[in-house]
C-alpha cells in the first residue's frame, strides 16, 4: 500500500487573491506574446480566464508554444459562427419584453452592460464578435490547460469565410484529432494535415454543416416550435392560482413561464439538521 498516494487538500486549496491570479495570467500573456510576436492580434484577461487571438497562420505555432510552456492538457477545440442569431420563435421574442421596455431588440446591448469590454465593437459586416475580438464570420477556438500551472488559456483564430482552413493540432495534441473531426463536420473548417478528416457523428452522406448559423434547424422548419404549450390562460378574479403574486399585464400568459424562478423563496422548510 505504500505506493498508493494521496494528497491533502487543506493547504493547497488556500484561496488566492483574484488579483494575484490575474498577475499570473498577465505574465503568461506576456510570455505568449514574446514567443508568438505579432501573431497575437488580440487578448483579454477576464473573470479568471485568459483569451489569446492569433493569426490563423500562427494557429499551429500557438499550440507548439503552449506545449513548450507546460500546457500539457488538451481540453477542447471547436468553432464559432458569428452570423447574427435569429430567434426562430416569435413567441419567445415577445416574452423578452413583457412590459414593452426598451429591450425589444435582443441584439442590442443594454446600456448598463456590466462587461463593456466583453462585447467587442461590431465589425464591418454587422457581426458582433466576443471576447478578444474577431474580424471574420468564423472563428476556431480551443482551450488548453496546464496541470502544473493550474491555469488554462483559450486560443482563437479568425478564419476566412469562403475557405475556412487552419493547420491541424492533432500532431501536437493527440486529443485534437476527434475535436477537429467534429469541428470539420459541424462547421466545415478544414484542418490541413489532419490524418483522418472524416465524419465523426454524422452519417457519411450528410450534406451541409449543421452548426453554422445559416443551417436551419430542420425539426423546427418542419414543425414550428409550439412555444409555451403548457401555459393555460389565467383564470380571472382573485381566486386564480396567481393571486397574491404579481399578475403581468398585457401578454400575461406568455410571460408566465413555468421554468422561471421566483424572486425569492421562503427561507427554508426544514430545521437545521
Amino acid at each position, binding site marked *: 500500500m505504500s505506493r498508493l498516494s494521496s494528497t491533502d487538500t487543506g493547504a493547497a486549496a488556500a484561496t488566492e487573491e483574484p488579483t494575484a491570479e490575474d498577475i499570473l495570467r498577465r505574465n503568461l500573456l506576456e510570455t505568449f506574446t514574446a514567443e508568438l510576436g505579432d501573431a497575437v492580434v488580440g487578448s483579454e484577461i477576464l473573470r479568471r480566464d485568459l*483569451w489569446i487571438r492569433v493569426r490563423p497562420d500562427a494557429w499551429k505555432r500557438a499550440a507548439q508554444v503552449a506545449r513548450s510552456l507546460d500546457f500539457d*492538457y488538451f481540453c477542447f477545440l471547436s468553432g464559432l459562427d458569428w452570423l447574427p442569431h435569429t430567434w426562430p420563435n416569435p413567441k419567445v421574442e415577445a416574452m423578452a*419584453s413583457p412590459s414593452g421596455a426598451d429591450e425589444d431588440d435582443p441584439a442590442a446591448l443594454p446600456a448598463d452592460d456590466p462587461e463593456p469590454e466583453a462585447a467587442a465593437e461590431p465589425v464591418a459586416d454587422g457581426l458582433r464578435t466576443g471576447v478578444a475580438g474577431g474580424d471574420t464570420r468564423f472563428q476556431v477556438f480551443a482551450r488548453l490547460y496546464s496541470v502544473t500551472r493550474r491555469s488554462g488559456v483559450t486560443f482563437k483564430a479568425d478564419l476566412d469565410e469562403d475557405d475556412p482552413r487552419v493547420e491541424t493540432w492533432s500532431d501536437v495534441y493527440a486529443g485534437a484529432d476527434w475535436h477537429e473531426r467534429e469541428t470539420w463536420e459541424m462547421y466545415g473548417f478544414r484542418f490541413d494535415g489532419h490524418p483522418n478528416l472524416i465524419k465523426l*457523428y454524422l452519417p457519411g452522406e450528410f450534406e451541409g454543416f449543421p452548426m453554422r448559423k445559416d443551417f436551419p434547424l430542420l425539426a423546427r422548419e418542419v414543425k414550428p416550435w409550439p412555444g409555451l404549450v403548457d401555459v393555460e390562460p389565467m383564470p380571472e378574479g382573485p381566486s386564480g392560482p396567481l393571486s397574491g403574486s404579481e399578475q403581468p399585464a398585457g401578454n400575461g400568459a406568455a410571460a408566465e413561464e413555468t421554468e422561471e*424562478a421566483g424572486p425569492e423563496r421562503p*427561507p427554508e422548510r426544514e430545521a437545521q439538521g
Partner: protein
Amino acid sequence: MAVTEHQRLSYIASQAADARLNVELQTEEMTINLGPQHPATHGTLRLVARLDGEQVVSADVICGYMHRGYEKLTEVRTFPQVTTLINRIDWLSSFANEVPFILAAEDLMEIEAPPRAQYIRTILFELSRIANVSLFIGEMGVQLGALTPVFFAFRDREYVLNLIEAATGGRFHPNYDRIGGVKDDLPKGWIAETRATMDRLRGYCDELEDLLMGNEIFEARTRGVGVIPAAVGLNYGLSGANIRASGIDWDLRRDEWSPLAWKDLDWKVWTHPDGDSFARYWVRLQETREATRMVDQMLDGLPAGPIQAKVPRIIKVPAGESWVHTENPLGEMGYYVVSQGGLGPFRCKIRPASFNNISIVPWLLKGVYVPDIITILASLYFILGDIDK
C-alpha cells in the same frame, strides 16, 4: 466436405504452435465488430477491431448513433430551458451536468447563489457522483465475470437515487438547478435519511473492496492491463479518475475556483501511480467513499438562509463569454457559453468528459488481447450520452 488446402495448412500451423516449435505463423487478419449494442458500452458505441490472432492490430471507435445535437438545440432555447437538455448528457449523474452550465450563466450575469443553495448544489453534485460511480464499481466486476457486485451496485445505488428523487422530484433528470439558486429546499427528514444512506454506501464500498480487491482473477485481469502513461493521457485530454489513476494529482474541485462548497470541506484527492485498469477502479472506489464523507460534512455545515438569489423574472444574460468546468463523476465537464445579451445562449460548446476519455481508445487498444478490450473499455468508464452529446 472436402478440406481445402488452406484449412489443412492452418491445421498444421496450429499443431505446430501447440507443439511450441517456434514457427513463425502466417495468420490472417480478422475484423470484429463490438457493438453498437453491447452491455460494456453503456449505449450505442461501436468498435471495429482488426485482429491478428488474439491481438488487436487497430481499433476504431464509431460513435454518433446517439448524437442529439444539443449544441445546436441550446441555441433555440432560453437559458432556463437549457438544463432540461443538458441533463441528458451524462444521464447517470444528471444533476452534475446542470451545475457548470448554471455557473457559467451566473458568471456572466455576475450573480451568486446564496450559501445554502451552493451547499445543496454541492450535496446533490456529490450524490450524483456516488450514484454514478457506485454503479461503475459494481459493473466493473460483471465485465470480468463476477455477477454479485453488480447486484449490490443496483441495490445500493437505488438508495441514493431515492434521495435525489426526494429532493428534486426526478430520479434521473432532476432539472433542479436554477440560475441564482435551486428550485426547492430540501424536504423534511431528508438530512437524517441522507446520513443513514451515506453510512450504507460506505458499507457498500467496503463490501466491494472485500469482494474484488485481492481477488486473484480480478487482479490478474486488471493489473498491468491498459496502462496509460500520464503524459499520453494529458495529451489526449483524459480527466477525472482516469488521469488521477495515472498519478496526476489534479482535481478541479480543489484546484479551480468555484462558488460551490468544496473549498469548505476537508477531503483528499486520491491518486494511483500505476495507470492501469486496476488503478482506475481503485481510484474511483476511494472517490466514492470520499464523496460520502464530503456529503456528511456538508450536512453538518449546511447553512440556513434563502435558496434563491434575486434574479429578474425574464432572464437575460449579458453579452460575454464564460468557460466553467467542474469535476464531474466522469471527469472534467465544461460549458463554453457565449451570450450576446439575449434570452438564450448564442453558442454553447459542451465539453463532456467521456468524449476525450474515449478518444484514447484507438491508441490504448493497440496490441492488447481480445478479452482485455472489454476490461479496458469498462475501466475507462464512459457514458454514451457523454460522448455523443
